[in-house]
């Protein structure tokens, strides 16, 4: 049975970019499905990378008839892949978007799904442990599921430096101790990787796919 990994977090935490990078990392190791579960906000969703992911053999699940709409419609395929042998990544919409997870709660509990909270400490509401715990509790309350790990995705967009990630790691370490869940990965843009070797195997290389490259 493949793992079911649910990616949650406040909007703007980098859930979608993380989900896409996770999919790229896991692609080619058995059947992999990325479910775009963001039915709240129609911009910068993982479905925008459908062609790229399909070229890597990843199945992308979303409402194909209305790719750019914000319709609250869920594909029956989601139930199928959550019950099946596939490895599944669920990219959940920000904030209130986690409500939709409640719909899949029985299946996710049965499959012992991982629920990972992506955190960017340069975002206004998750700049300290209290804010992160608050974000976690809100997601958990909406999804009625418990977070099992934290992902450090602290960044300042194009102005990100290695110290931003270190700053985030310190804050997440405190949140992690209070919540009793581990910090699994520290995400960094490829050019920063050589400066962050101290993170060892927990360093996760993030290529950005969705920010429009034509906008300078």
């Amino acid at each position, binding site marked *: 049975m493949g793992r079911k990994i649910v990616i949650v977090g406040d*909007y*703007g935490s980098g859930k979608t970019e993380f989900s896409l990078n996770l999919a790229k990392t896991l692609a080619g190791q058995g059947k992999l499905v990325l479910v775009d579960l963001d039915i709240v*906000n*129609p*911009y*910068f969703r993982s479905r925008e990378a459908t062609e790229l992911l399909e070229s890597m053999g990843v199945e992308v699940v979303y409402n194909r008839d209305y790719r*750019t*709409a*914000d319709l609250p419609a869920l594909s029956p395929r989601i139930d199928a892949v959550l019950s099946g042998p596939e490895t599944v990544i669920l990219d959940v919409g920000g*904030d209130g978007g986690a409500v939709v997870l409640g719909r899949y709660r029985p299946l996710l509990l049965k499959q012992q799904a991982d629920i990972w909270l992506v955190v*960017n400490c*340069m*975002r*206004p509401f998750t*700049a300290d442990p209290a804010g992160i715990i608050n974000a976690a509790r809100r997601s958990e309350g909406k999804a009625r599921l418990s977070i099992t790990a934290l992902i450090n995705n602290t*960044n*300042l*967009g*194009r*102005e990100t430096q290695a110290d931003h990630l270190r700053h985030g790691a310190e804050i997440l370490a405190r949140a992690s101790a209070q919540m009793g869940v581990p910090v699994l990965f520290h995400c960094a843009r490829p050019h920063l990787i050589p400066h962050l070797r101290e993170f060892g195997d927990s360093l996760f290389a993030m290529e950005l796919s969705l*920010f*429009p490259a*034509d*906008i*300078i």
Partner: protein
Amino acid sequence: MAKQLMKGNEAIGEAAIRAGCRYFFGYPITPQNEVPEYMARRLPEVGGVFLQAESEVSAINMVYGAAGAGARVMTSSSSPGISLKQEGISYIAGSELPCVIINIIRGGPGLGGIQPAQSDYFQATKGGGHGDYRLFVFAPASVQEMVDLIMEAFDIADYYRNPVMVLGDGTLGQMMEPVEFKEPKKRDLPPKDWATTGAKGRKRNIINSLSLVAEQLEEHNWKLQKKYQHMKEHEQRWELYKCDDAELVLAAFGTTARIVKSVVNQLREQGIKAGLLRPITIFPFPDKAFAQLPDTVKAFLTVEMNTGQMVEDVRLAVNGKQPVHFFGRTGGIVPTPAEIIAKAKEIMGGVR
């Protein structure tokens, strides 16, 4: 205060709060929903009021009331919602009240779509509602610039006693960029002695846009026009990028201008001397910028996410001296650099 990574829509909310806005009345619509969401979360923390009205019509009339009472007040919507607000906006302009209105444009007409567009340029700059009025309109191109301009917009609204609109598109509202909040340059603002604050010990103030005596209404209109004229003389803002030796000047505002900036760089690599003229105020339209352009300019190309709106103001400013071409995508499609470059080459081939 260090920089934060913020989504355009939430940065709008925070900028307004930093500028002293304590009242927000609105109604949700994609792609600006994070503005009311952010205000609902943050305004109570600073002793302000967030109210989700039952419709856009009631929201704008709440803005009318709060502005009349002298409050710093804002509303936000996207295209169809802004259309619904037009009657109230006209009343606010007619009553000479300050407020800030955000329009994060989506594709139209009608309900249209929810992807980015710039097709409300006419509506924003030519009045929008009924009567001879103008909004002061900013068209920022980045989240940081949007923050800076919103913080200033409240002062400008108070200074002119006129609604200020900040025009963005879905992309600008949704994109995440680093921002910091800096105090804007202060203006000398007159006391709001016209506000309905309770007429204790003074003559009562009346906020009204009804004027049944034609001579008085005409006089009121000339007074308003004098204000707009003052804006045209003193408030025009623009950015010129690589225009010093340009032969082709591309004119674009908002998000499109950032795409065009990369087009200018690519055209120059290919031997075409291109430049960008980016209006930052679109009312007043920066016609003074055109006087600063060098004699080398042979043609203009206006690029917009609509079927050709700002191009009319560009044509008025160029006044027939050079040909003005247009390239646009609409309905929620963002133009690509490649197709703009192809259009630029077609034009420059023709000139040579």
